[in-house]
């Protein structure tokens, strides 16, 4: 089962190691990881997409909340959250097929970020399925490189990750 977790942590060296250590100890493979600053400079926010059994995930969330440098942990429900990640795709193209490729890109709202005589680079954001469909259509033209950022997740509505902080016994702080 796939899961998406947001972890609000103190913006300090060594914290990422402790958080990621919780996953490696249980042999959970991380599908995507993204770390970035937040509106307040003292916090960083880590978004982790991974697969694992649900009952172990509950345990993992509690263990994560126990780390003194972790301020809040939030498990996302796909229906209540927005997921985004960016992909860059470098593709072979010549004068003869460039317009065809650009048409496909337009359908997917992919942006051209670099044009060379023999290559194009696209930038595309959005859900996984959209990116996969786009790359499948580009495959016949010859994909040279694909690179993806870690996905990030944000809950819809007024709830924020810090609202989880104030609910002890739920996903937040701090029963230890």
């Amino acid at each position, binding site marked *: 089962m796939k899961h998406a977790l947001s972890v609000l942590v103190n913006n300090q060296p060594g914290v990422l190691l402790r958080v990621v250590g919780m996953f490696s100890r249980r042999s959970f493979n991380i599908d995507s990881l993204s770390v970035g600053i937040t509106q307040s400079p003292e916090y960083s926010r880590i978004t982790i997409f991974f697969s694992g059994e649900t009952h172990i995930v509950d345990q993992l969330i509690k263990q994560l909340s126990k780390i003194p*440098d972790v301020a809040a942990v939030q498990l996302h429900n796909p229906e209540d959250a927005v997921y985004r990640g960016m992909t860059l795709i470098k593709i072979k193209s010549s004068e003869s097929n460039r317009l065809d490729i650009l048409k496909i890109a337009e359908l997917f709202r992919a942006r051209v970020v670099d044009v060379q005589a023999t290559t194009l680079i696209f930038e595309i954001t959005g859900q996984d399925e959209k990116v996969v469909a786009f790359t499948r259509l580009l495959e016949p033209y010859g994909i040279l490189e694909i690179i993806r950022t870690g996905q990030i997740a944000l809950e819809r509505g007024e709830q924020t990750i810090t609202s989880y902080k104030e609910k002890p016994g739920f996903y937040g702080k701090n029963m230890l």
Partner: protein
Amino acid sequence: MHINGARAVIESLKNEGVELIFGYPGGAVLTLYDEIYKTKFPHILTRHEQGAVHAADGYARATGKVGVCVATSGPGATNLITGIATANIDSIPLVCITGQVATPFIGKDSFQEADVCGITSPITKHNYLVRYAEDLPRVLKEAFFIAGTGRPGPVVIDIAKDAFAAEFDYEYPDSVNLRGYSGINIGDEKTIDSVVTALQKAKKPVIFTGGGVISSDTHKFLRKFASSMHIPVTSTLMGLGCADPDSDGYLGMAGMHGSYASNIAIMECDLLIGIGVRFDDRVTGIVNQFAPNAAIIHFDIDHAEINKNIKTELSVIGDLQWSLPLFLEKTAPYVSSIKSNCKEWYEYTIKMQKENPFTYKEDKTHILAQEAISKISDMSGPDTVAVTDVGQHQMWTAQFFKIYGPRNFITSGGLGTMGYGLPAAMGAKLGMPQKKVLLFSGDGSIMMNCQEMATLADYAIDIKIIVIHNSVLGMVTQWQRMFYGKRYSHSLFKSKADIVKIAQAMGIKGYRIEKKEDLKTGLEKIFSEHGPVLIDIVVPEVQDVLPMVPGGKRLDEMVLEGDI
């Protein structure tokens, strides 16, 4: 106060009320040791860093205070690892101060450099790398707060050599300000109400107590709970001493080598109240068959322990200092009805315990470990602290040595660290000089930190070491005998090391007792002596710890005697 970082560490220790530290000097902590010299701060020099960390751990377990140890960078710090992991799994409060190479050398594979924060992250409650002296007061304040509050645990402070030397204006903070950690553990009162309701309905309740009762100093509430409502009590290894071993409803230790009555009571009860336990695999037997007929209730401070190993029906999350008194208050009106509901069950469990005590077949010619430990138990007062190493002697001590109070039984429960006992006993005696401290060890375990006998001699630390000497790795051979066709792969010592001579060579007294008729007089003579003494008691090679619940079996499938 304008002082250097090293002095700031000492001043912070003083501010935290630290009376004694254990350690071993080296390059990266020379500045710190210079300040220890100048301030005459009480410090015990062990013979190995592992000895220092276990001693700090024994000190912490015996006193309830935070234990402190110091080691240098690189190998000094890595020698602490086993001790930190031992303390972490048993939730023992420690502050471990390690030196780190100077800031400009960090990350350059410098001499005696190791990534201590990286190595210790999975086995500490928290850790710090300090590069600037100005950070030291805050970090020390936080470290002691994190180590000692909530569910206790070890905290490592790795301090760069130049931070020890740098001077700054020292001021110790009054409070900590941690965004991700409160240390306050008041739970939801409603959860206690539902436990009271469940208890009123129960006919066959059992209290299952653990190390959390000891670390929270709540054994008095627990004893009152059990005795006022007539509910039988069983304990984990770590919980020994919570209950009075002479009290009626006490069934003894549960689990792999637990008592018959405890294990059967767990299997037959209709309500199991776990207090400060973590349902370790050594105590549950096969997990999905643990207390199969019971609703399980879990009192614990740590949210992450709930439903970790055993699914519980009800949980009370919070400090036992908060939950247990409140629970007693709320049950007060129902005490007599609960008592009468459970009368039959209570009497049944007491009878079961009386009919099936821990036992052994006496040998006509040889001294048996069980016999020696029982005798020593009879000779010791209720204020005696029993420390153990790990193996057969550990289980026999848990079975046959009566532990009358909390913090009187010190053992490496979770990690099972051989070599833990001697330094831990040393720390326990230094923390509790008024108590008699006994160490039970084996001829395997004692060798793993035998260098600390020299420390005993240096400081004349008055502990009595009882080595149960069977010339084999007892627990390993027991498993090989039972499950590996008696193929004793590397578990028999070929040469018989003379442990008495080792003791004497290190500067402490050593005696050997071989003959059965000498046991009583020999022990009496030795216990009357002052100062550290080692007694080597020779016992037969083949002897099993029983009862035993083999791995993957239910608790009621325990083997009581003979082969499996």
